[in-house]
C-alpha cells in the first residue's frame, strides 16, 4: 500500500471491503477514498460508475481476490466501457483475510490476469514483488485505462493487523462526497445537503 500511495498522484480511490481498505486507510488517512463496508464484489462496479462520471480524474479500485471472485462479471462490464481513467488493482493473497484467512475458492488454480484479459481488458499484468511494483507504477499510472494489475502478496497470519477507518456508514458518504466536491469542484450534494 505504501508503494501504491507513493504513485497515487490525484487518483480517487475506491477500496473493496476488507484488509486492503484498512491498510490503505492506515497508509493514507485519505478522505478522498471510499472504504466500502458492504456490497462485497461490487467495489469495481462502484469505481466504474465513478470513473465514468468524472472522466478527467484518475480513479483506482483496490479490489481483493475474494471480491473479484464474487463478481468476475465486473471485468466484462469494465471492458465494455473501456474507461480511460480507471486502474483496477487486485490484492491477491489467496485467502479471505478478514474471516480467519480461510482459503480462497480454487486456491492457486485461477489466473485472474488471464481472466481480465479474456474479458477484454487488454492491459492486464501480474506483479509479484514490491520492487517490481515500484518500477512499473509510473508506466501503469501514465497508461490509459482500463488497466488491470494483480498484486500477488502473502497472507498475513494476524488477520486484523490494521484496523478500519475510524468513521463509517453515512459519515463515509458525506466525508467522501464533500472531499470530491472540494477536490474536483463538482456538486455531489444538492443545495439542501441531500
Amino acid at each position, binding site marked *: 500500500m505504501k508503494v501504491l500511495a507513493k504513485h497515487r498522484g490525484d487518483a480517487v480511490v475506491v477500496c473493496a471491503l476488507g484488509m486492503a481498505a484498512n491498510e490503505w486507510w492506515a497508509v493514507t488517512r485519505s478522505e478522498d477514498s471510499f472504504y466500502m463496508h458492504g*456490497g462485497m464484489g461490487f467495489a469495481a462496479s462502484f469505481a466504474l*460508475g*465513478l*470513473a465514468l*462520471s468524472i472522466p478527467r480524474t484518475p480513479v483506482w479500485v483496490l479490489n481483493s481476490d475474494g471480491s473479484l471472485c464474487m463478481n468476475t462479471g465486473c471485468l466484462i462490464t469494465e471492458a465494455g466501457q473501456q474507461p480511460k481513467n480507471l486502474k483496477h488493482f487486485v490484492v491477491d493473497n489467496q485467502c479471505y483475510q478478514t474471516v480467519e484467512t480461510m482459503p480462497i475458492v480454487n486456491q492457486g488454480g485461477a489466473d485472474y490476469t488471464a481472466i481480465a484479459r479474456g474479458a477484454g481488458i487488454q492491459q492486464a499484468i501480474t506483479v509479484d514483488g514490491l520492487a517490481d511494483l515500484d518500477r512499473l507504477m509510473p508506466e501503469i499510472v501514465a497508461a490509459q485505462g482500463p488497466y488491470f494489475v494483480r498484486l500477488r502478496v502473502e497472507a498475513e497470519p494476524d488477520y486484523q493487523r490494521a484496523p478500519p477507518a475510524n468513521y463509517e456508514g453515512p459519515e463515509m458518504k458525506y466525508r467522501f462526497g464533500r472531499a470530491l466536491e472540494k477536490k474536483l469542484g463538482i456538486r455531489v450534494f444538492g443545495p439542501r445537503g*441531500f
Partner: protein
Amino acid sequence: MDVNDKIHAQLVKAGVRLAASLPDDWVNTLIRRISRDNQIHHVPVCREAETIAICAGAFFGGVRAVAIFGNTGLLTCTGEMATLCLRHAIPVFCIVSGRGSIDDHKVYQEVQGRRTIPLLQAYDYPFRIIDKEEEIEDIPNAYEWHRLQKRPFVLFLTKKLLGTAA
C-alpha cells in the same frame, strides 16, 4: 410520443445522465431508447447488482443515474442494495418491470409477483407502481424524493402502462 419516449423524456428532465441496465422483455424498449440518446451514458452490465453499485459510484461523481432491469433481477440484488446503499445511505433510482402481475402469465415470473413487494417492505425500500401514462410526469419528483430518502427506490412499470411494448 409513446410511453417509453415519455419515460425517457422525464428521466432527462430529472437530470439523469447515466443508465446501467440489464435486459428484460418489458423494459427493453426503454433501454434501446436510452442507449441511442447521447445525453445519457449507457452501461450494459452482466448482473443487476452491478447497476446498483455503478449508480452509487455515479452519485459521488455528481452524475444522476438510473438502474433499469427486470423484477427477477431486483430479487437478486436486494442484499447489495442493503449492504452498500442502506449501509452508506446512498440513493439509487431503479426502474423495474412489474413482472408477475395479474396480467403476466409467464410461469417463471409468479414468485416475483407474489414476493417482491413484501421483500421491499421488509427492507424499507420505498417504491411506486406506475400504470397510468399521466403518472409518468411524476418521475422528476420521484427522483428528487429518492435522493431525500437516501436509499434505493424502485419505480415499477406495469404491463398495463407499457401496453403492446411489453
